[in-house]
């Protein structure tokens, strides 16, 4: 069969991720009576859309050579603005969601612009945004948790026969679109090029600023979507939401083989990374592991995944 080397590299990587995921599922299915059931599997599927969406954005940002520590706070700010408009101002659902997406996008664009135009490391810029957005979230909700009622609940409720929610399908669609964007658009190819060697890009007569603003903006937009999904699942908007989200998202990216040095990564692998983490946590919970044990095992898996990845890339 005539498979191009690029495709072969990709398929090999996905095969490895799929194998790792299968081993985990098999292990938990054998060790517990409850894991291999439709209920468990759909519960996992319906709990991951928000993390998936944020991790997709994080993957793109890591590929362009940046990092975004502000995702959790930006999610909280987006959700808070949405709740404020919907509950306090009586805006329609569509308008409030649009405002949430706008808040996320603007935050992301600001991150990207300051990072690229003033050449300030994204680690610092987004650390600042982490505080700013959290403050914004408290202001928007006056530090209260807002109850949204049933307005958005349909998004996270099981849908049609197999019990998967619309949010899950939205997350899948976003993974697919982002993978396409990365490989089949100028924006995606530019992101990879800048992450690989931004000096080559500059010496090729290109500005890195529009790409970096767009990628960070896209990351912020995805935070807005994640916030909407999270609010719909919890029926509330909490200004404390999304704490630690940046670390979970980075962990998923890293397990999926995205390089923190930029230029390398795959959205589909990140999705596998999200699945591996949530299967691990659900499985361990069903085996009766306590929360501390869950954290220790998850941490070990992250380090192991990176070790494996560096060993593999050194060999090739």
């Amino acid at each position, binding site marked *: 069969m005539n498979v*191009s*080397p*690029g495709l072969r590299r990709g398929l090999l990587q996905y095969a490895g991720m799929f194998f790792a995921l299968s081993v985990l599922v098999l292990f938990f299915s054998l060790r517990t009576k409850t894991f291999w059931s439709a209920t468990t599997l759909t519960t996992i599927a319906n709990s991951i859309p928000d993390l998936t969406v944020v991790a997709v954005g994080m993957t793109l940002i890591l590929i362009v050579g940046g990092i975004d520590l502000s995702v959790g706070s930006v999610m909280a700010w987006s959700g808070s603005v949405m709740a404020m408009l919907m509950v306090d101002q009586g805006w329609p659902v569509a308008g409030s969601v649009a405002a949430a997406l706008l808040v996320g996008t603007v935050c992301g664009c600001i991150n990207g612009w300051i990072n690229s135009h003033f050449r300030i490391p994204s680690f610092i810029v987004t650390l600042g945004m982490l505080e700013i957005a959290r403050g914004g979230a408290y202001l928007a909700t006056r530090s209260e948790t807002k109850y949204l009622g049933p307005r958005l609940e349909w998004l996270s409720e099981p849908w049609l026969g197999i019990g998967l929610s619309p949010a899950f399908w939205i997350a899948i669609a976003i993974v697919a679109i982002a993978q*396409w964007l990365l*490989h*089949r*658009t*100028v924006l*995606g*190819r*530019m992101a*990879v*090029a800048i992450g*690989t*060697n931004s*000096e*080559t*890009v*500059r*010496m*090729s*007569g*290109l*500005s890195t600023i*529009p790409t970096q603003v767009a990628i960070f903006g896209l990351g912020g937009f995805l935070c807005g979507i994640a916030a909407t999904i999270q609010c719909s699942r919890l029926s509330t908007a909490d200004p404390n939401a999304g704490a630690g989200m940046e670390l979970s998202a980075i962990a998923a990216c890293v397990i999926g083989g995205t390089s923190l040095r930029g*230029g*390398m990564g795959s959205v589909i692998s990140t999705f596998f990374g999200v699945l591996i983490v949530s299967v691990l946590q659900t499985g361990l919970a069903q085996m009766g592991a306590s929360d501390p044990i869950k954290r220790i095992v998850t941490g070990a898996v992250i380090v192991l995944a990176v070790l494996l990845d560096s060993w593999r890339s050194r060999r090739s």
Partner: protein
Amino acid sequence: MDTLSEEHHTLLSINSLCKVYSSPVVDSVSIAFAKGEIHALLGANGAGKSTLCKIIAGLVQPTSGTMKLANERFEPRSKSQAESAGIQIVQQELNLIPTLDVAQNLFLHRLPSRWGILQIKQMHSKARALLDAFGLQRIDTHELVGNLGIGQQQMLEIASNMHRTCRLLILDEPTAALSSPESELLFEKLVRAKEEGLAIIYISHRLDEVERLADRISILRDGKRMGTWERGEMDQNQMVEQMTGDENSEVLSGPSPIRTESTDRQPLDRPVLSIRGFVREPYVRGVDLDVNEGMILGIAGLVGSGRTELLRLMYGADRATGGSLCFADGSVRGPFHSPQAAVKAGIVLVSEDRKADGLLLNQSIEDNIFLPSFAGIWQNERFSLPTNRWGGYSSSKGRAVASDICEPLDVRYESVEQLVGTLSGGNQQKVVIAKWLLRGGNIYLFDEPTRGIDVAARGIVHRVLRNLAAQGKGLVVVSSDLEELIEIADRIAVMSNGRITGRFQGADFPRGDILQAMFAGYQSNKNENDGVEV
């Protein structure tokens, strides 16, 4: 003329030393360095001076030959072995850590400490004493090295090397970054150190310094030692003659067979780009050039003469502090502030270091070739990117375009999706050229386009250059290989010490005159602005 010092004065003696890469770089050189002398090593680009010094300093292993240090066999396997034997080298790239202060840099090899805690007062007082003894009273030992000027850093590096166990000090172009008072200070120190018995190997293009300082002068050419002369035995012109081999010019300047091919072409005297008064001290000090339609302008010069810097200024990769560009349509503008602006104006650069800024090594050939064309989407320019009907990037069309553009260049690959980093140097260079051919431009700047690539690839690159000229493009080619320039260029400008010191044209380039012009900027008895005009 070879007068070896008496046996007991000799510190390091080298016997038929060879270093062969693909061809011999150091070719059975025998030479002796004595205690208490400044021994200058002279030679043109690629004469083997740097390689010889790197062998002595343990940075490079010789292919054959022996060295004796104070009558004992000396085979340093690493820089630290050579250092423990008392050999210190100061290279052009400085070995300082900019984020540590002056005192810490001076004692970095052995920081004064007790149980791991720095003896800060002691360290600074020792550093102070050392710098004062060296005449560097103005440098504060608490200052971060990164805040010092480049000249002060250079002096600091030399001071730091000289205070360690040092029997033989190798200095590679030490005055390149120094102002003249700093140079004077250095000379004074070197003379005093020599009188105390230190052996010094001094590499410099600046012949007036060599004439003043050196007790003996050895000249290398094409990896061979041409001879060693005592102080005062030769003047600067004779030095240049020995370095360039002008006495043998009748052997060298026979008509080269490939030359005839390009003389069919009639270069037009219509400038597509004229640059005037380009300045960026200290590398480029006021350069005027005319790039004509359909013409290859070669730029010759020694390494460090400002050739690469000039191209980078023309391309906007670095900012010129002065100068203007005049285009074919009569428009005049200041120097570019970014490569983006230069590319927009039709100027493209194939840079010297393809790994650092020419290629994305971890990406495919296809991605590399399309990179400059990505500009189309952000600027309203000719958009040469293959797209499919959803506006996405079409990889099947892209692959076809990429292999089309690679075909005449004879790039050897398995597939255009192969990673560029896995290609040979010659093929990598062809990919860099291919990406600019796809993007297109009116003025092509090439910096060392054939360095480190094989003969076949070199022939192809030359063919590409001639084709571009035949299409009426303006080309500027910088090369350290004078034979290459003579072969392909219609005109040659010679750069020396940041200025143009000679302009040549015609079917037969006078090699001797070109080589002389390469040294002209560094000679004291010639006015730097006086070029050899032919």
